[in-house]
């Protein structure tokens, strides 16, 4: 009866696939056209290189195996993997199976509804039994993930998540359709099996159960397949409008990222890929200090992207984008590696466009560079002016190694511009960057050393300087390694606080630790490196009041005080000030600890 290879019930599926295909191609094409000049140049430059190989590997590792999620929590990784990789294998093995059964070719839907169209296949090709069992095993694999997903909805803690995302209605409907697909598939195959005895071990068993219940009936069979097809069709039709678009988009995103494309300060086509690649898993929520310490759960990465993506929600985009410390914790946690802070800054820049002007920078004209041939330029940063202990120690270190230096912002301070840029004041930040660049270039200094990680990140990434830029921890580490600076080891036990801008921002984790190990005993803390906690006094968030900042600070402080150190060490004037007010345990910058322990050469 099924020999004509077609039945009306395949239509919902076919329509769904067709719609998804056309819609996705149209969407992606539009987004790719929306890439800016630099991004296009990157693609043109790298497209004919071997970079697609690591992209394929990463797409396989992250899109199917969900490696980063697995590293966070085994069970959560298993859940995502079984759904993604399991379904992928179902499709691939199903296609192979159909190919073997129909060597002369077959319509697309045959592979999907194989058991219906080929109930007696076991005699048609030799490994049929093996494939039937394999397909059943894969279905069990997927269903186990589905079971975990349902379990997670009730109780997410065992899967390593304290909070999960609040989804939009569309996402919930799409999820319901997705959750229906696999149980219906099992039921349909069992219904066919109850009539024809085909299928693998599980299908046959369930078919027998159905027979014994007296529901072995072609009409029932057809209804089941229809429902399965409708579930598939619905899911495919909803996909472009729901979070499940991430399934394909992530692959594209990985590829473009491997080609060297990065997001810029304006919303581009690449941003659209990032927006769509967010699976809304909600992993960004748990780590966020705003959630942990203040219980604010409407502004984390997942919600920020949602507000940008969804036109109706855009009126909320402003407070959501502003209410963030920009500590990059979510960026470190994101399994898709979305540039959450860059996108957030895009929204801020857009919001500030009306009030962003270049007036009020006349004072910049009065600041003059100093001829610094053969010297290094030292930029303390605005915040170091409030913690003079740091710049004082740096001067002592320069003098100890006989390094001539120009303290470029000693008297007339010009901000590096990053605090403004982070708030969305693009033009004003540009003015400051231009002046500082002019000063540094004209001074002819050979290297730039900064004490503030915010300035450091700015000079390193936002300026285009031709001289090396170093944070003072890097510089001191270099001096120690080259033997120029000799330090004694004191008996202090210290814990080190990774500043957000230095650690997650610039990846400087080891140099400060090496310096501290050279001169003190460094203790480990529970949350450090990528997982370090924001001190709360970051310049990223203009909306927090002092009490809220203090609550965030106290959490970070408790983490640092837990191993009972004699001193808290950090490498950022902002963090130093934050902790300084907190407790009677002394807080020192690494430069200060080093300056206290310099062994003067024999004189």
């Amino acid at each position, binding site marked *: 009866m099924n020999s004509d290879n077609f039945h009306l019930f395949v239509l919902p599926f076919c329509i769904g696939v067709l719609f998804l295909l056309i819609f996705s191609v149209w969407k992606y094409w539009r987004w790719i056209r929306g890439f800016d000049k630099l991004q296009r140049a990157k693609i043109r430059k790298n497209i004919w290189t071997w970079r697609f190989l690591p992209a394929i590997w990463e797409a396989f590792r992250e899109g199917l195996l969900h490696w980063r999620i697995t590293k966070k929590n085994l069970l959560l990784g298993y859940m995502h993997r079984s759904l993604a990789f399991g379904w992928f294998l179902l499709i691939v093995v199903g296609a192979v199976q159909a190919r073997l059964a129909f060597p002369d070719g077959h319509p697309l839907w045959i592979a999907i509804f194989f058991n219906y169209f080929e109930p007696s296949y076991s005699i048609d090709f030799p490994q049929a039994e093996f494939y039937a069992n394999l397909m059943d095993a894969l279905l069990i694999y997927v269903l186990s993930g589905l079971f975990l997903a349902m379990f997670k909805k009730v109780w997410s803690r065992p899967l390593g998540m304290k909070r999960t995302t609040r989804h939009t209605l569309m996402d919930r409907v799409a999820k319901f359709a997705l959750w229906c697909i696999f149980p219906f598939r099992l039921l349909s195959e069992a219904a066919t099996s109850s009539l024809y005895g085909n299928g693998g071990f599980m299908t046959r068993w369930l078919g027998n159960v159905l027979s014994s219940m007296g529901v072995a009936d072609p009409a029932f069979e057809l209804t089941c397949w229809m429902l399965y097809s409708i579930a598939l069709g619905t899911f495919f039709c909803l996909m472009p409008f729901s979070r499940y678009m991430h399934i394909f988009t992530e692959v594209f995103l990985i590829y473009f990222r491997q080609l060297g494309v990065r997001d810029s300060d304006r919303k581009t086509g690449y941003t659209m890929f990032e927006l769509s690649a967010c699976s809304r898993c909600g992993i960004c929520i748990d780590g966020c200090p705003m959630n942990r310490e203040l219980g604010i759960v409407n502004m984390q990465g997942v919600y920020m992207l949602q507000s940008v993506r969804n036109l109706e929600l855009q009126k909320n985009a402003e407070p959501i984008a502003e209410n963030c410390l920009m500590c990059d914790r979510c960026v470190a946690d994101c399994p898709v590696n979305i540039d959450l802070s860059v996108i957030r800054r895009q929204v801020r820049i857009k919001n500030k466009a009306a009030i962003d002007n270049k007036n009020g920078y006349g004072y910049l004209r009065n600041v003059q560079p100093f001829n610094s041939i053969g010297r290094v330029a030292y930029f303390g940063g605005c915040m170091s002016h409030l*913690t*003079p*202990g740091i710049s*004082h120690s740096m001067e002592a270190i320069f003098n100890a190694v006989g390094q001539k230096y120009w303290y470029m912002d000693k008297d007339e301070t010009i901000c590096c511009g990053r605090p403004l840029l982070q708030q969305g004041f693009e033009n004003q930040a540009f003015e400051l960057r231009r002046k500082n660049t002019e000063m540094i270039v004209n001074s002819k200094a050979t290297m730039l050393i900064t004490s503030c990680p915010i300035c450091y990140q700015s000079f390193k990434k936002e300026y285009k300087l031709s001289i090396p830029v170093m944070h003072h921890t890097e510089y001191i580490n270099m001096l120690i390694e080259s033997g120029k600076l000799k330090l004694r080891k004191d008996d202090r036990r210290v814990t080190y606080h990774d500043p957000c801008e230095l650690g997650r921002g610039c990846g400087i984790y080891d140099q400060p630790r090496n310096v501290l190990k050279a001169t003190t005993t460094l203790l480990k803390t529970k949350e450090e490196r990528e997982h370090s906690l924001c001190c709360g006094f970051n310049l990223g968030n203009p909306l927090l009041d002092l009490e809220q900042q203090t609550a965030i600070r106290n959490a970070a402080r408790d983490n640092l005080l837990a191993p009972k150190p004699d001193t808290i060490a950090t490498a950022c004037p902002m963090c*130093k000030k934050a902790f300084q007010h907190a407790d009677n345990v002394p807080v020192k910058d690494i430069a200060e600890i080093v300056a206290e322990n310099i062994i003067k050469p024999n004189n």
Partner: protein
Amino acid sequence: MKTVSIIGAGPAGIEAAYVLAKQGVAVSLFEKSSSPLKNIADKAFLFPNFAAATDIVEQMNRKLLNANITQHLDTDIVGLVHEGEQGWKLTDNRGNSYYSDNVVLATGYTPFDAHRKEELGYGIYNGVVTSLEMEKMIRYNQIVNSMGEKPKRVVFLQCVGSRDEKSGNHYCSKVCCVTAVKQAIEIKKQLPDAEAYIFYMDLRMWGQHFEEMYRQSQQDYGVRYVRGRISEASGTFDGRVQIKAEDTLMGLPLKMTTDLLVLMVGMEASEGTRCLAKAAGICGEYGFAQSTDPHLGDNLTGQQGLYVCGACKRPMSINDVVNDGRAAAFAILEG
């Protein structure tokens, strides 16, 4: 007759002890340092009448000679607990215990640690001193800058560690305003050629004669007042201090170089106050001890037989704490 233990031999504790002893009460007076009146010992003159601090110290020390007072110097009380029939049990850091029917907490304040306001450069630049150090300089007639020379200019900064959200102290320390006026006058008396500037948020001349002192400081001594806080201090190559501030009356930022920057540090609850108020369950705001009522029960606490007096409750001036010590003594005699 009931026995009384007084913790803290400052002006409040001594006055309370003296009044009680005169009434025939056996008083044990505990002091963690090796001599009483540590906080006044290095003061020069006391506002508002410029009385010599040495005179006050001498008179207070004389009060301690009363036979009913037993002094326990070098005794740091760390434990305070009520043990039913035996009354209050005090434990010192060496593990000794003392029992008495009543306890007066007179553990006082500690000056704000100016290191915590790092932007003001205390401990980094030698020209930056605290009001306590300035008082010492005045007392020993050694007002000198970091190079050991007579200063040409002295700048006072009010509200260091008081009325300051960032340090966690929202309260006013009450005595610093008038102390700066007093010290500026002293400087002008000793060094008529030196300039004296006081940077303030607002000047709180709350006591008798204070307003008059403030007027005289301007008219007779030429002390200059600038409304605005100093945001940062940095060192100059010649060992002086450069300050950046805003004159909020002129609405202009200003920079000034000075020989000495005097930080008028506020009062915080002393370690003893924090620890014992916690032990006795009478913690108030900012680590200070809490009395039951600021009007009629300011020496009483929620604990039977436990009294509080002096700067362990809130910032107070010396004349206030002496009166408060007396009041605590009468509260005991009454109760």
